[in-house]
């Protein structure tokens, strides 16, 4: 089985994230890392490999500037077998459509090396939080999509997942090849072991440019985007409110008074 897991290198979501003047995300001023939600995707890919017991290869695929290779390295350290970074200046400022185009073309190049059975993704990135690239990938690669899984099982080429939607708990089935995405409920992602960190140094890690995957620079980047950002405004910080200490029920009364004053009661 061949699994490609898509990982994104994102600005640390606990840091003070900003925008550039052209409306793109500032990816320089804040430290980057492997998106937390993609760690779950890597974990599930590794679990599928462990359960399959056969010749399964897991490849981490990432798009980004040079330093995005960190996300690929972390994936290799967790246990992924190979890594690919697609890096090209022209890609900067890409929208969902261009991002999914580059990923799809990279997957197609990997398919040239051997059939890809599962394209594994996280539920969303922690910067754009769109959650739409897996579906776009499925559309571009003409594959079925089985998304937002909290439990993943595979038997041969059959995949069964559990999904908790708002209205129901569902069991969803699909036949490989397919696109699969997993949520943060799918199980704790492993920490790289010391052995894993050492082994990662010897694993194949390639960097591809746009021409390597047959994408024209004109199809990607800020100018080619199908959407444009007009303005980004920081929300004014909330002014500190009143904080009271509860003493013998005073807190409850104060709370009720506040709610009444604001006409919530």
């Amino acid at each position: 089985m061949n699994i490609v897991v898509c990982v994104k290198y994102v600005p640390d979501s606990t840091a003070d994230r900003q925008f550039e003047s052209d409306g793109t995300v500032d990816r320089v001023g804040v430290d980057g890392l492997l998106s937390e939600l993609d760690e779950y995707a890597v974990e599930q890919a590794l679990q599928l490999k462990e359960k399959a017991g056969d010749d399964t290869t897991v490849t981490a695929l990432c798009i980004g500037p040079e330093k995005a290779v960190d996300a690929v390295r972390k994936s290799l350290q967790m246990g992924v077998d190979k890594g690919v970074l697609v890096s090209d200046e022209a890609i900067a400022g890409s929208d969902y459509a261009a991002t999914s185009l580059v990923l799809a073309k990279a997957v197609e190049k990997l398919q040239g090396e051997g059939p890809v059975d599962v394209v594994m993704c996280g539920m969303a990135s922690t910067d754009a939080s769109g959650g739409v690239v897996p579906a776009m990938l499925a559309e571009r690669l003409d594959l079925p999509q089985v998304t937002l899984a909290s439990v993943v099982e595979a038997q041969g080429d059959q995949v069964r997942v559990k999904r908790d939607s708002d209205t129901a708990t569902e069991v969803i089935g699909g036949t490989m090849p397919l696109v699969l995405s997993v949520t943060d409920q799918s199980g704790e992602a492993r920490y790289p072991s010391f052995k894993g960190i050492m082994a990662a140094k010897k694993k194949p890690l390639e960097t591809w440019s746009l021409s390597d995957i047959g994408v024209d620079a004109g199809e990607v980047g800020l100018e080619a985007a199908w959407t444009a950002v007009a303005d980004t405004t920081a929300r004014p910080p909330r002014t500190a409110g009143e904080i009271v200490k509860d003493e013998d029920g005073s807190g409850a009364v104060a709370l009720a008074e506040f709610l009444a004053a604001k006409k919530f009661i």
Partner: protein
Amino acid sequence: MSEVLVLVDHLEGAVRKPTYELLALAKRLGEPSAVYIGPAAQAGEVTEKVTKFGAEKVYVVDDAPLKGFLVAPKAEALAQLAEKSSPAAILIPSSGEGKEIGARLSIKLQSGLVTDAVDVAEDGTTTQSVFAGNFTLTGKVTKGTPIITVKPNSAAPEEGAGAGAVEEFTPTVSDAAKKAQIVAAQPRKASGRPELTEAAIVVSGGRGTGGNFEPVENLADALGAAVGASRAAVDSGWMPHTFQVGQTGKTVSPQLYVANGISGAIQHRAGMQTSKTIVAVNKDEEAPIFELVDFGVVGDLHKVLPAATEEINKRKG
């Protein structure tokens, strides 16, 4: 005037509130055409409801041949309708499914997609709340037919009857679209409380509840509120994931958000930071949540909430 396609948000034919909000936004952009993909038996009732809130046209797609095949056939149906009607825009509710339909549609129609809009202006400018609610972003689709997924509570429903002309539509569903399917489904029990993403008031509980959500639920009921939970509470198995407010759960922006026993980590703030009024009850006066609040009580929620609930019920008379 151009049509604006609005995908009806419903549960087995029971129309949900975001549909009316999207119809109100659609009116700014053109003539709303509701698209109902659901059980044919409910089509009449759905038509009546969306017409009341401004639908000039109602496309009825019987979901019997599509049922269980998830988003791919729905995206095909919408794409075929879009090709037929050349709409000025396509509005879709911002659910997990809605965003995936929008995503596939974006590639099929080679058109720009804006996700999680909280407003859409007459000229098509969209507004989004990004980076955990720390930034407001305005933008526009620049290619093709704007496809916009819209969050609940983004507009007030506007009653005002449209023509409601019904057109039955039978999409051509490809074999490829049927390669993933729902094998089994266990519906959730309705809580009897307002829908979390649509509620005007949300009362949430976190680690500080210690697993006992009764004080939270009783306060919620006194206020007619929805109940939410922090990731810690969900990970501990105290509440189902559908109640989770935060980066990997729901994002809410109610009139009032009451956070109880919730420290206020960034992942939670991402889900509620834009609420109009924020209140917190927490034993720890250093909890980051207190940086966000309009009012806070430092105290034990197991004492404060029941007393507050009693006080509120007394005042309600």
